[in-house]
């Protein structure tokens, strides 16, 4: 049976997968073809969306990239009807393609099923090995043995802090209590991160299975998945998957005929970044304002409704079934001394191939950027990578050789975080980057701690001042002082890490700051108030388009004569720069 599988995760959908799907439906119906149409999750090649996998009569798989509704007819005609694959559009298939290098250095544990199976079907999941680990854990392992396995795998929490998962489960197991809870943290608030979303959309059953195993291990009978409400697709897939799992007896009473029971509820989060912090998240599930609270007591001792609670990230849970099935050693054999297994990264920015990758720990930044992502776009220079989202920091290109693991990344001043990687080239202003992230955290601070609430606001104001050319020589010291105090005296991770983008850019790109302050220049030409526009007389043809485009009437000149920009009147909007077809407007 021939199959057409459309990648319908959020990334696919936003590239137009729905229309492509409908087009296939229409064409298949019209031509009455013996072809099944299915959907799947994200395979990671977001730079090639919309992706459509075609399984032809020979049992061969072809992955078409950049499919548009217009191309659907052609693909059907040529490949399905005439069995002639349209090789130029194939990004993965039986023949080598340029895109194969995207996968060579990846190692897929968490994403093992994403983009391969139909996330709407529990059978597809079971067929791919789903719930086998649950069976093994429940029927062959004692709860302690499960915890031993997880501990032995040296899996560290993928939600950001990297706490050893097995150890955490052990705490929750040892906490006395009549009721315990398992929470899956799917709040994924980092701007630019979409690992958890992809996993939930592409392989919800693995996460559910991981949670059930955790429930068994720590002695909990109830679980919550806290998903941000902005992930409607993930929520829908989860609801469906939970219902299916209940139907098959993987959730509910007497799971797999044992006396273990477990249920999962979904809680939609209101979307505040700080609600991803575990104590705030718990408060939010309880219906209280999502504010972090003091720890201890840790959730393992007193969490949801005051009961022992184990909270893990989506990716953490998705690793669990693999570990149970393949054994702790298999997992621990991957990675470095400090960090084992793999890590999923969401790559965005100026690289050629943006998307979702899963790599073994210990890979270098350069390998990810050059080998997997194929380097920078437009032949620009790699300048820095921001790891860990707003809580992370910028690692300069010079340090591209470092191996990715928790310890190494922390040493740079950034954090592993949940896996967002924003790759920047020479056209990025580092002060602007710091400002962007600080603006985010400043807005998302819950407002409790004085330094986080007020300190970040003032830091932001200083950065604004610097990017507007009003910076003072003393600003950098002030910034560092404040950053230090915000970091040291904030209660939760948000405040403690909020200064990281500023501190790392100051550490690696201090000169850029100084140029802003002392030379009143933005080397990357990003901070518009610091730019000067001049017309190069020898290039100017005097066509006058720039003068017409200028909203401030700052450009004057006779027709056919070189024009001239009145610096006092210029509002630095850059329209003249964009309007000149002769490259006569010079930006500095």
């Amino acid at each position, binding site marked *: 049976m021939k199959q057409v599988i459309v990648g319908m995760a959020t990334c696919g959908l936003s590239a137009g997968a729905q229309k492509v799907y409908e087009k296939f439906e229409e064409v298949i119906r019209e031509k009455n073809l013996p072809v099944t149409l299915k959907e799947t999750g994200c395979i990671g090649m977001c730079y090639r969306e919309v992706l459509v996998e075609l399984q032809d009569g020979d049992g061969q798989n072809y992955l078409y990239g950049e499919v548009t509704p217009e191309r659907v007819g052609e693909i059907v005609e040529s490949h399905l009807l005439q069995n002639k694959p349209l090789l130029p559009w194939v990004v993965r298939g039986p023949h080598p393609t340029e895109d194969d290098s995207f996968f060579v250095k990846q190692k897929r544990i968490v994403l093992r099923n994403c983009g391969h199976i139909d996330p709407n079907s529990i059978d597809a999941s079971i067929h791919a090995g789903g719930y086998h680990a649950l069976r093994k854990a429940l029927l062959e392992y004692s709860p302690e043995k499960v915890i031993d396995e997880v501990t032995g795998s040296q899996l560290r929490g993928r939600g950001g802090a990297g706490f050893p998962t097995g150890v955490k489960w052990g705490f929750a197991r040892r906490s006395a209590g009549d009721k315990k809870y398992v929470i899956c943290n799917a709040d994924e608030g980092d701007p630019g991160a979409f690992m958890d979303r992809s996993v939930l959309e592409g392989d919800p059953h693995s996460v559910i299975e991981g949670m059930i195993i955790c429930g068994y291990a720590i002695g909990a009978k109830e679980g919550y998945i806290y998903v941000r409400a902005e992930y409607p697709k993930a929520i829908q897939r989860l609801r469906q998957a939970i219902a299916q799992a209940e139907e098959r007896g993987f959730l509910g009473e007497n799971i797999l005929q044992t006396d273990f029971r477990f249920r999962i509820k979904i809680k939609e989060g209101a979307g505040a970044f*700080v609600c991803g912090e575990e104590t705030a998240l718990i408060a939010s599930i309880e219906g209280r*304002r999502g504010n972090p609270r*003091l720890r201890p007591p840790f959730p393992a001792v007193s969490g949801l409704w005051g009961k022992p609670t184990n909270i893990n990230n989506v990716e953490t849970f998705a690793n669990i079934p693999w570990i149970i099935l393949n054994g702790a050693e298999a997992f621990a054999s991957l990675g470095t001394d400090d960090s084992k297994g793999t890590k999923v990264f969401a790559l965005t920015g100026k690289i050629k191939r943006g998307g979702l990758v899963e790599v073994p720990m210990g890979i270098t930044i350069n390998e990810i950027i050059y080998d997997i992502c194929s380097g920078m776009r437009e032949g620009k220079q790699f300048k820095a990578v921001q790891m860990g989202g707003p809580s992370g920091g910028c690692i300069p290109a010079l340090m591209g050789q470092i191996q990715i693991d928790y310890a190494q990344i922390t040493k740079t001043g950034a954090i592993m975080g949940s896996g967002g990687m924003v790759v920047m080239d020479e056209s990025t202003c580092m002060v602007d980057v710091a400002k962007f992230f600080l603006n985010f955290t400043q807005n998302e601070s*819950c407002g*409790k701690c*004085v330094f986080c609430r*007020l300190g970040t606001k003032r830091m932001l104001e200083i950065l604004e001042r610097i990017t507007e050319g009003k910076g003072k020589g003393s600003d950098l010291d002030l910034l560092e002082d404040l950053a230090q*105090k915000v970091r*040291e005296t904030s209660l939760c991770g948000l405040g403690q890490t909020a200064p990281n983008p500023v501190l790392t850019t100051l550490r690696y790109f201090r000169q850029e700051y100084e140029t802003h302050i002392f030379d009143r220049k933005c080397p990357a030409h990003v901070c518009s108030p610091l730019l000067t526009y001049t017309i190069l007389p020898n290039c100017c043809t005097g066509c006058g388009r720039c003068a017409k485009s200028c909203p401030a009437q700052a450009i004057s000149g006779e027709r056919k004569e070189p024009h001239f920009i009145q610096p006092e009147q210029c509002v630095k909007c850059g329209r003249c720069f964009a309007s000149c077809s002769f490259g006569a407007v010079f930006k500095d």
Partner: protein
Amino acid sequence: MVTLTIDGIQVTVPPGTMILEAAAKAGIKIPTLCNSKRLIPFGACRVCVVQQKGRRGLMPACFNPVRNGMEILTNTPDIIKARKIQLQLILISHPLDCPVCDAGGQCELQNLVYEYGVSENSFKGEKANLATDHVSPFIERNLNRCILCGMCVRICDEVVGANEISFLNRGFKMKIGTDFDRPMNCEFCGQCVSVCPVGALNDRMFLHKARPWDMKETQTICGYCGVGCTLTVGTKNGRILRVRGDESRGVNQGTLCVKGRFGWEYVHSPERLTSPLIKKDGSFVKATWEEAIGLVVKRLKEIKSEKGGSAIAGLCSPRLTNEELYSYQKLMRGVLGTNHIDHAGGYSYAAPLALRESLGYAASTNSINEIRKADVIIALRSDLSETHPVIKSEGVLAVKRRKAKLIVVNSRNIYLNKFSAFNLLVKPGSEVALINGMMQAILQEGLAKEEFVSSRTEGIEALKQSLKNYSPEKVEALTGVSRASFVEAARLFAKAVGGVILISTGQASEKKDRDLALAASNLTLLTGQIGKENAGIFILGEKNNSQGALDMGLTPGWLPGYANLGNPSERERFEKSWKLSIPEQEGMGALSILQAAEEGKIAGLYIAGENPLVAYPDSSRTKKALAAVDFLVVQDCFLSETASLAQVVLPAASFVEKDGTFTNADRRVQQVRPGLYPPGQARPDLWIFQQLSKSLGYKLNDPSAKAVMDEIKNLVPLYGGIDYARLDNPLGLQWPCSSADHPGTPFLYEKDFPAGKGKFIPVEFEEGPAETESPWFLITGPTMVHSGSLSLMSPGLTRLQGESYVQVHPEDARKLGLEDNQKVILRSKQGQITVKTLVSWNAAPGLLFVPCHFGQVGGNCLTGRDLTITKVQLEKV
């Protein structure tokens, strides 16, 4: 124990102590802006940061527990720098309007800025610009000064349980507010004001009245209810300007209710009596003390000689001090020769007397602050948020902090249910059946504390016998409570480490109160929830000195200290000491006195502080009785409904204008200290009693309150060790305190009961007389905002609640087609009133509630003297 050094000073503290407290112990003050010992550490302000030697970074002292061998530094340059930046950050948006801020001089922020010399700011920004709340009663909110310490939000949640204010918005835009930013509409206990470290939440009555250091502050005891909260009364130029609670004093530890904190205005009411009044030709004329005392003495002497002492009777209020109450009964018994004396209608102290019968002492068994440490609490017929708000807070603390289970037994859906694990909504008056049912379930399930029962109690067989009639099915039918819930409640109580029963007294019949207290006593004896800490029974008197009135013998049958009047040797002991003789025959109680008056048998009636016309049941009959008295003397702060019927009115001082002691609901004798002089010619009751005694021929050597207490001490063994020098401490002394070296007794019956064993006294549930014509049950009682007549003279309180109402359940309202705030007529056999409806889920279907304070339209116009169950008819106007 954990030993650590702080700034080089070694301290040893229990594990779990926070560095902040350990430092305090070492005499080192670490600044804080968001910490209060009344609250759980929150960690918002971060000015409390300290450093640990050998560790990087700063850590907050308020929530980091001590560890052995820690070396803590509290004042390094790094810390000082952090604090300075902190303060600078706060000051950017702070208005710095200190000259017009009420907190000036006691503002934590101001103090720190001063201490750290933060005179310049490297940051700039806009000043906060939020509208000031000029509308909410009692509380002004000027959030521009708010430093977002969250203490108001937390106390309202953790201690009050009202959750009226919360954090709104996030990050830089965060502020404190109510939902939709409406004016506040809460209990107005002012706890939020009391914790606000700056001038963001202010006592509206105190606004711009004085600088804190310009006031004199007097520590005294609240004159409203039996909790006996310590008040810090701020006065200047002869006027109260502010009342607050001090967190280091008293059972309340800074917590007060709306009456205690804001209900003092009556003291300065223009209606206060400032001169004795004598009625001439039907209207009052001002008189001098000589004239008034002369007339009273002359008429009482006449009555005594013509008709004998027993034609004279006295009713006195449990609002007076112990010294006054004692002197009053001595005057009535010894000098005027009558035992017809009583207080509070005579029906409100049956519960403590019942405990005396079964356990030995007529009072609560344990200390109020133990309630918060209990793990199961039964609120038995006690609407605590209305009657004893500060006890409610103890319950809230237990429930919220210790996850205690609260079991509410009431015939209304009272507010307390917000915190309860069980809401046992009983048919009116069937509480005893419920408790009996619980005990039967405990016996059935073998949960009784056998060892305790066999070694420390007697009469278990009789109890078992009587409980046979209380099968779960039957109790379910009698009370209307599902057996599953009361049986589960019984199990919880029986298994509790500390089980507490709270009973508030007031408007109920003598018999019902007695039965209820005995049932409670049986339950605690059966489960061993007595004679230990964090357990026991609390009898919560309605008035500030309800306990003292009983202790001081203000009853027809008991002399001070529960000496039996019928016992000649006991009588003799007092007679000898007083050099007076006491009539032999037992006197009449309050309601009998009125009955006798109605029959013309009482010629002289001396009422001190009571307002029977409002506070006693069946107002119309009370009025008849008072009118039938030849010579009525009323002594009060105001010309009350009762006083207006008198021939002579004597102006009395209020509680802030006198000294003496009150005994609160946990047997705590506490000193009342004057902050003011009484207005005009008004005088403390003690002075008046002494003047009367003197004019009647009985002179005292030393008229001071202290001397009276010395006399009490000698005659009342429970008070044997109580003297003013010892009372000068933040917590008073709890009786029994038999001698000068006795430390007082926080909880009773630890080793034994006074009579050796605790007695089971079975009580049977009797259904009230079946009255069928009137369909509605009526419950009357106090409300949170008012207590008796005095609170009605405080304009602030009457603005919150100025008129009577009838509380109707929404379902009933729907059936009757009644709206909120609609006029209805309530009619009983005793009378009728026209009031407005208050439709509320706090009522129960079929049951109405009318507050008892409002004279002409209060609940007592409808109640009968038997005070069992009142039923009424309801008509729309």
